[in-house]
């Protein structure tokens, strides 16, 4: 373990050279003990790099290892059996990953990435997709950033799923700060993973590499709401290079926030329409999906109607019917409802309250009222 870390601390030796060395020597300890001639046999190692390798002692690696012990951080090495084979398809896959939590066998899953500044639409898409994945026990992979990433982890944990978060800093630091509790939860029901040793802060150049790792861990990747030049697009590009399926959730063509996601579709990404597409063996044609979904919805509605009839309590008064009908398509404010019914807001307070409690309507953030479901 110490020698693995040692190998990552050498300046000038990146993941590719590290792996070349490993291939030749099989273990990092052999590299440490090898003589000059042997090392120079490895492709790409010249005099300078050899100098770096020789000049590096184990001190820094020991410090890192001590920190890991102290902070309860575990280490996944390239030759560990938990290290997924498909991840190695990524040329720059790191030989050491630091993590907190548990990495399960075959940890690959579906990556979900998107804008930090997402809309309610994006939130809904993520929630539906992730809940479905969690129910099918598929790992949800994301980057624990604000917005889509954060929602993906949250929704997964709320559905009792397993989730992996890849960070652009070390795993003992929580960024963004408001995700502190989320991070603790992920550690409990999954893992937070980083290629950076403990006490490494957030830096802009860390993120593209983090994104590449996310794509390498993803069998499929779903991009929800990515703006122009978004980090999520880097992830998508990497995924494409690794020949992983990339799905993009379509959105309004006028939405700046989704410019990147819509462009992905134009560039050949698959259109995401329903969560079952993210399974390993999705249905036949995507258009079947749409029809199925419509059928599903109709079916559900009928079922609901039957249920409510059974319960025998949800017989709406004429007033309630009018309100439900009015908010059916678009959220309305209380004032608009009152206007529509030609009465005062105060008179319908109790009706609104009862409808809300029985789950027929819902108050949106900001106070508008919409139909539930």
């Amino acid at each position, binding site marked *: 373990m110490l020698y693995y870390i040692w190998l990552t601390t050498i300046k000038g030796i990146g993941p590719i050279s590290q792996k070349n060395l490993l291939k030749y020597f099989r273990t990092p300890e052999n590299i440490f003990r090898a003589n000059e001639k042997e090392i120079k046999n490895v492709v790409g190692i010249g005099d300078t790099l050899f100098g770096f390798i020789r000049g590096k002692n184990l001190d820094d690696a020991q410090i890192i290892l001590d920190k890991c012990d102290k902070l309860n951080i575990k280490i996944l090495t390239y030759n560990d059996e938990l290290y997924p084979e498909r991840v190695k398809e990524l040329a720059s896959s790191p030989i050491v990953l630091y993590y907190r939590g548990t990495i399960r066998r075959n940890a690959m899953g579906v990556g979900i990435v998107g804008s930090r500044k997402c809309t309610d639409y994006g939130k809904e898409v993520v929630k539906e997709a992730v809940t479905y994945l969690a129910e099918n026990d598929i790992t949800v992979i994301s980057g624990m950033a604000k917005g889509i990433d954060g929602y993906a982890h949250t929704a997964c944990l709320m559905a009792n799923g397993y989730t992996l978060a890849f960070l652009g800093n070390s795993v003992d630091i929580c960024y963004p700060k408001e995700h502190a509790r989320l991070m603790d939860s992920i550690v409990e029901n999954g893992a937070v993973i980083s290629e950076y040793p403990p006490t490494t802060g957030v830096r802009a150049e860390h993120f593209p590499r983090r994104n590449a790792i996310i794509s390498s861990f993803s069998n499929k990747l779903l991009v929800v709401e990515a703006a122009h030049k978004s980090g999520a697009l880097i992830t998508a590009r990497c995924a494409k290079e690794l020949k992983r399926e990339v799905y993009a959730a379509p959105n309004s063509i006028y939405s700046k926030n989704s410019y990147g996601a819509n462009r992905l579709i134009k560039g050949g990404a698959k259109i995401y329409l329903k969560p079952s597409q993210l399974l390993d063996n999705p249905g036949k044609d995507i258009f079947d999906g749409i029809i199925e979904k419509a059928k599903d919805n109709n079916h559900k509605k009928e079922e609901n109607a039957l249920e409510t009839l059974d319960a025998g309590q949800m017989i709406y008064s004429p007033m309630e019917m009018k309100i439900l009908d009015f908010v059916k398509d678009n959220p309305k404010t*209380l004032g608009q409802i009152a206007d529509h019914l030609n009465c005062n807001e105060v008179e319908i307070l109790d009706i609104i309250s009862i409808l809300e409690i029985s789950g027929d309507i819902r108050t949106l953030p900001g*106070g508008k009222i919409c139909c539930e479901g």
Partner: protein
Amino acid sequence: MASVVQSFSIKGVDGYVVEVEIKTISGQPMFSIVGLGDTAVKESKERLEAVLSHKDFDFPQQKIVINLAPSNLKKRGSHFDLAMAIGLLMETNQIRPKEIKKYGFIGELSLNGWLRPCIGVLPMVMAAKEANVKDIIVPVGNMKEAGFVKGINIYGFSKLKEVTNFLEGKEPYRVPVIEDEKIKESDPYSIDFRDVQGQDALIEYIVVAASGGHNMLMIGVPGCGKSMIAKRVPTILPNMTEEEALEVTKIYSVAGLLKNRGSLIEHRPFRSPHHNASTNALIGGGNNAMPGEISLAHNGVLFLDEIAEFNRKTLDGLRQPMEDKKVTISRVNYTNTYPSNFMLVAAMNPCSCGYHGTDRCRCNDYEVLKYRQKVSGPILDRMDIQKHVQPVDFMELSGYKMGKTSKGLRERVESARKIQQKRYEKIEYINCNAQMTPALIKEYCGLEVEGERLLRLAYDRFQYSARTFHKFLKVARTFADMEVSENIRKKDIAAALLARDLDKEQANMLVI
């Protein structure tokens, strides 16, 4: 024998009698004032010397000692000037007043011998009444303020010479003509709930808050009318009783904030400190332990706009005064207790960008929550009602009917308050629904079966915490009182259940 003249001093908002003792001793000319006076008291000596060197009097060239008894209490202010001057003139036999014992003196001297008005006169005169001092001599400028106290003779003078002539019986007292300045008082009815359009439901909750003494939080995007509504809350509170008005005037008198030559404050105060306010500004403090905003809002409304921007520690300082309805300020020099019985109305944006719930907001749930957590739980907990304020569509404004008038709303508040007063008549420290203890809630908030079922459903649906349970009951009780209903009906519970918009929103958030 030293000459003794009575004056007064203030501790907190209450006055007490101070005996000003003056003694001249033969020796090197010098002047000292003892009795823990502040700089203003010490500087009296210069004023006295200047005034008494005036042609009418002589300043004695002797050793002069003035003692302010009780000498162990700290005193401040310039109002001892008059008492000291009278005492010094008596001591040096320049005047021979009759019955000096029955008079109390308040007033600052100008270098020309005029009497200047000073602060804190009302509590001092009230103390005089309690101490059975029947005749008070004050500067003309303070006559009106002193006149609020009934059953006591107030004599107003504008010059020291007039005072001495009166005391010696050389001149009868002539009631000075006070030029009643055309006081431009802010007309209480210049603002009215009539001006608020299209917010009927919110106003209903405001009325409930005012009726039951509930604290209220309004959440809304910038410019939706939160401040406009808050400013109008005092207009629907019942008029102050004379006793309440005196309490408020006393506090303002002590704080030196009485305007218009000290007229009685008849309208409930409305204080809206900026969110940059320090803990001392809000709670009270400073070198002299002066009252803060919460005491200045006593019997009125304290409006904290942008409550999330206040310093968290400052806000937490509100917790104890809100519970106890009074606050004790301890400083090195003074420890004072001020009343602080106010209705808290707060306003905030829904998130840091201000527009959560509209299309332009891009804050995620974690950020929204972080912003809201700037207001600590215990403070939010003291807000029985939290409502969203919807921006009114400007284009639709003209279509709305006029809002309800403050007068009509105030009548409803008054009637609901009457019911509560009757209910809590025999219970000490409780006079409105918001103050009910759990035991009282159990006694007075019986539910009908339907109402209970509804409450249970709401709990399952929104996962409210147990303590919100009592809040719903209290608010429902007020709803019932407003319609003079003995029992809490289903519709009262239903309406009360709409009073926790923030909690409900939180239940729908995608956060861990």
